[in-house]
C-alpha cells in the first residue's frame, strides 16, 4: 500500500521553476531517499509534502487521502507528517521529555509520559528526560529530534539532510542505528541528502533528482549498476559510458552505448582481449591502493588498484564485458 503519492508536481520559486513534473510513490515501511546536489529542489519538495509551500500544479495524497490538489489544501498541522531538520531545531527552552511530548498535547499526562518513555527507549536515550538541548551532543540531539517527530505516530516522517551536521565518524554509526530504529518501528520515511554513500546505505529506493526533475528512481543497486543516462553517471561518478562506434567494435560490442562501472575496469601493461589503450594522467596515493585517472582519447576514467604504474605511462584498460550494461 502506498503511504504517499505525488502526481506531476510543478512548483515555482520567484518565477523560477524549481520542481517540474515530479511523480512518485512511497510504500508503507519504506525508506525513500531523495538524492541530489544542493539547490536542486530537494528541500522545496519536502516543504511541499509537509504543506509549507504549495505547488502550482499536481496532487499529493497521504494514505489515499488527498491533502493537496487544485481544490484541496490541508494545513500542515493536519497532515500528520513528522519532520526532522538538518540542524534538528529542538525547542531550546524545553527539556528532552517536553520536546518529545510537545506533539502529544491532546493526550493525558500519563499517556504522554508512557509514550515519551517508549520513544526514549527506542532511540536509546533513557535517563536524558530532564536534560536540555544545549547539554546534548549532535547525535543525541538528532535522536531526540527523531523521537519528537515520531511521538504523535505520523503516517510519514520527512528528514532533511539529517546527518550533515554530525561528525563524519559519528555519521556512519548513526546511519546504521537510525535504519534499525526505523525498520523496527515500521516507519515510512523520506530523507533527503546530497551524499550518495548515505543514500546507498540507508535507502530502500532512491529518487535521483537534478534541476527539479527525477533522473531515475530505483533501488540502490539499480541506480548504481544500471544508470539510465549520462546525467546519472555524471552525478554518481561511478563509471563511464562508451558511445564511440570504433571503441565499441574494438571491444566487440554491439553499436549501442554501454555503461561500465569503474569496478569492472582494470589496468594492465600489455595489450590483450577487451582492452583499450590509454595514458595515466593523475596518480593519488590512498594507503592500500592508488587512484589512477586514465585518459582514453577524451574519455576520463578512474580506477583503483594496488598495482604500480607511473604518471604519463601508456597502459591498457581491460573491460569486464559481463558487467557492462546497454543504455
Amino acid at each position, binding site marked *: 500500500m502506498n503511504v504517499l503519492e505525488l502526481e506531476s508536481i510543478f512548483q515555482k520559486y520567484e518565477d523560477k521553476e524549481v520542481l517540474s513534473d515530479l511523480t512518485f510513490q512511497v510504500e508503507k515501511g519504506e525508506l525513500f531517499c531523495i538524492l541530489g546536489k544542493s539547490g536542486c529542489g530537494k528541500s522545496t519538495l519536502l516543504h511541499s509534502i509537509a504543506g509549507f*509551500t504549495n505547488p502550482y500544479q499536481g496532487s499529493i495524497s497521504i494514505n489515499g487521502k488527498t491533502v493537496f490538489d487544485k481544490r484541496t489544501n490541508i494545513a500542515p498541522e493536519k*497532515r500528520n507528517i513528522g519532520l526532522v*531538520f538538518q540542524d534538528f531545531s529542538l525547542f531550546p527552552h524545553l527539556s528532552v521529555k517536553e520536546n518529545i511530548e*510537545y506533539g502529544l*498535547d491532546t493526550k493525558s499526562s500519563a499517556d504522554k509520559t508512557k509514550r515519551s518513555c517508549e520513544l526514549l527507549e527506542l532511540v536509546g536515550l533513557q535517563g536524558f528526560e530532564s536534560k536540555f538541548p544545549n547539554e546534548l551532543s549532535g547525535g543525541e540531539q538528532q535522536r531526540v529530534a527523531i523521537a519528537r517527530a515520531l511521538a*504523535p505516530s505520523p503516517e510519514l516522517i520527512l528528514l532533511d539532510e539529517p546527518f550533515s551536521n554530525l561528525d563524519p565518524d559519528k555519521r556512519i554509526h548513526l546511519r546504521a542505528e537510525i535504519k534499525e530504529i526505523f525498520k523496527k518501528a515500521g516507519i515510512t520515511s523520506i530523507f533527503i541528502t546530497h551524499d550518495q554513500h548515505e543514500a546507498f546505505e540507508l535507502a530502500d529506493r532512491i529518487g535521483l533528482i537534478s534541476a527539479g526533475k527525477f533522473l531515475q528512481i530505483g533501488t540502490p543497486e539499480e541506480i548504481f549498476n544500471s544508470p539510465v543516462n549520462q546525467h546519472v553517471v555524471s552525478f554518481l561518478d561511478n563509471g563511464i559510458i562508451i558511445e564511440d562506434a570504433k571503441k565499441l567494435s574494438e571491444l566487440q560490442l554491439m553499436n549501442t552505448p554501454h555503461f561500465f562501472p569503474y569496478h569492472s575496469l582494470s589496468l594492465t601493461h600489455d595489450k590483450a582481449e577487451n582492452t583499450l589503450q590509454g595514458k595515466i594522467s593523475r596518480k593519488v596515493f590512498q594507503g592500500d591502493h592508488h587512484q589512477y585517472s586514465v585518459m582514453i582519447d577524451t574519455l576520463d576514467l578512474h580506477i583503483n588498484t594496488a598495482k604500480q604504474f607511473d604518471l604519463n605511462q601508456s597502459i591498457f584498460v581491460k573491460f569486464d564485458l559481463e558487467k557492462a550494461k546497454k543504455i
Partner: protein
Amino acid sequence: MPTEDQSSWQFIFQSVVPDLFQNTLKLFIFTILNTFLLGTTSAFFISFTDIPLKKYFQYLLLTGLSIPLYVFAFIYVGMFEFSGPFMSFFRETLGINLHQYINIKDSYWVSLVISFGLFPYVYIFTKNAFDNVGEQMIFASRSLGYSPMKTFLKLILPYSKPWIFSSLILVCMETLADFGAVSVFNYDTFTTAIYTSWMALFSLSSAARLSLFLVVMALLLFFIDSKFNKKGTHHQRSAKKLKSPLFKLTTTQKVLALFIVGGITFFSFFLPITQLAFWFLEGFKEEWGEHYYSLIFSTFKIGLIASLAIVILAFLMSYLKNYLPNKFNNRVNLLSLLGYALPGSIIAVAVFLYFRFFGDHLPIFQTGTLAVLILGLLIRFLSVGFRSLDNHIGAINPNLEKASKSLGHGFLGTLKRIFLPLSSKAALIGIVLVFIEVIKEMPMTLMLRPQMENTLAIKIFELTSEGEWERASISSVFLVCLGLISVYVVNKLSVEKN
C-alpha cells in the same frame, strides 16, 4: 546642623516614604502592563503577519526612543491638562468634560505616557526573540499538529519569555531612574524626593538615605534579571527567517491591524511630534535668543568630553578584558552592567558626598566643577560605551593578536596597529550612543553641574517646572533632532561595518 537634618529625615520617613513606595509600585505595575501589551502586540504584527506598510512601521515603532521621556511627559501634560488646548476644545466646543475621564497626572495616565516612551524596548527585544524562533522550529511545531495560533501561544511566547522578561526589567529600571518625566507630572517618586530634599530642604543626608532605598530597588531588579534569566535561557541561534508570514490576514484583519499598530505609532510618535513642532513654530521667535548659543555650546561640550572619556576608558577595559586572564573579565563585566542599573540621582548623591570629603585635596574635583559632573556621567554611562565596544572587540578573531605578537609587536604595538584601526568604527558608534545619552541626562546634570553651566536638558527642566511648554519645546526640538540624527548615523555606520 545634625539635629535639623535628623528632623527633616524623620518627617520624610514618616510622611513621604510610604507614598513614594506606593507611587513607585503603581507606576511599575501599570508600566509593566502597558509596555508589555504595546510592545508584544506590535512585535507580533511586525514579525508574524503581512500587515500593510510593515517596512515603515518597523522603524516608526522605534522612533519614540529618540524623544526623551521628559519631553514626552510635558507634551502630553501640555495637551491634556485642564487648561490645555485639547481639553478646552472638548469642553468648550463639544461640551464634553474629558477631565472626568483623563486626569493626566493620575498614576495610570502618567504610566501610559511613560509607556508610550518606553515600550520600544519591549518591542525590539520581543521582535528579536520572535525573529529568532525561525522557520524550522515553527515548521516543526506545525508538523506536530499545532495551528499557527497555537504555535504562537504554546511555542513562540514561552520561547521568547526570557527576552520579554529582560525588556520589562529594563523598562522598570528606566522607570525607577526617571526623574524628568515624573517631575513634569508632579508625581512624587524617589528620584524627585531625592532632588527635593537636597535642593529644597538642603538635607543631603536625607537625600542619601532616600538614595539607599532606590539603590536597593535597583539592585533588586538587577538581581532578579540575572537570577531568573540564566544565560542559557537566552538562546542565540542564527535561524532561517520565515519566508511567508505565519498569519495571512484577511482584509478586515488588516484594517484592524493597521488600526492597532497605527494607533500605537500615532500616540508614540506622530501626535507628540506634531504638537512639539506646533509649539516650536509658535514660540520660536519669542524664545530664541543669544543665550541659546551658550546652551548648545555647553550641551555639546559636556556631551563630547564625557563621551570621549567613556569610549577611551571602555576601549581599554574591553581590550584588557579580552586579552588578560579571566579573573579580571567577570568583574569588569559585572561592573559595567551595574552602572546602568543605578539611577542618575543616586550616582549624583554618591559622587557629591564623596568629593565633599576628598575635594579639599584635589582642587579640580571640588564639587560643582565640570570634572565631578563628567565623573558622574562616566559612572552612569560607561556601560553604554563598554557594551557597544566590547561587542565589537570581543568579536575580533583572537588569532590576530597571536599573529601580531608572533610578528614581533608587543602589547602596545598590537593595541595600536591591530585593535585601534579595527575598532575605530565601533568607537565612533560608541561615542554617538554615549553622547546622545549624556545630553539627554537630567537629574545628575541638574545636581552636579557647575553653577553657570546650563544645558538644553536643564533649560527644559526649568521651563517645564513653570509650565512653559511652548518655550520648552525649542530645546526639546534640538534634543529630538540630535536623537534622530544619532539613530541615523549609528544605523549607517553599523550597516557599513557589516
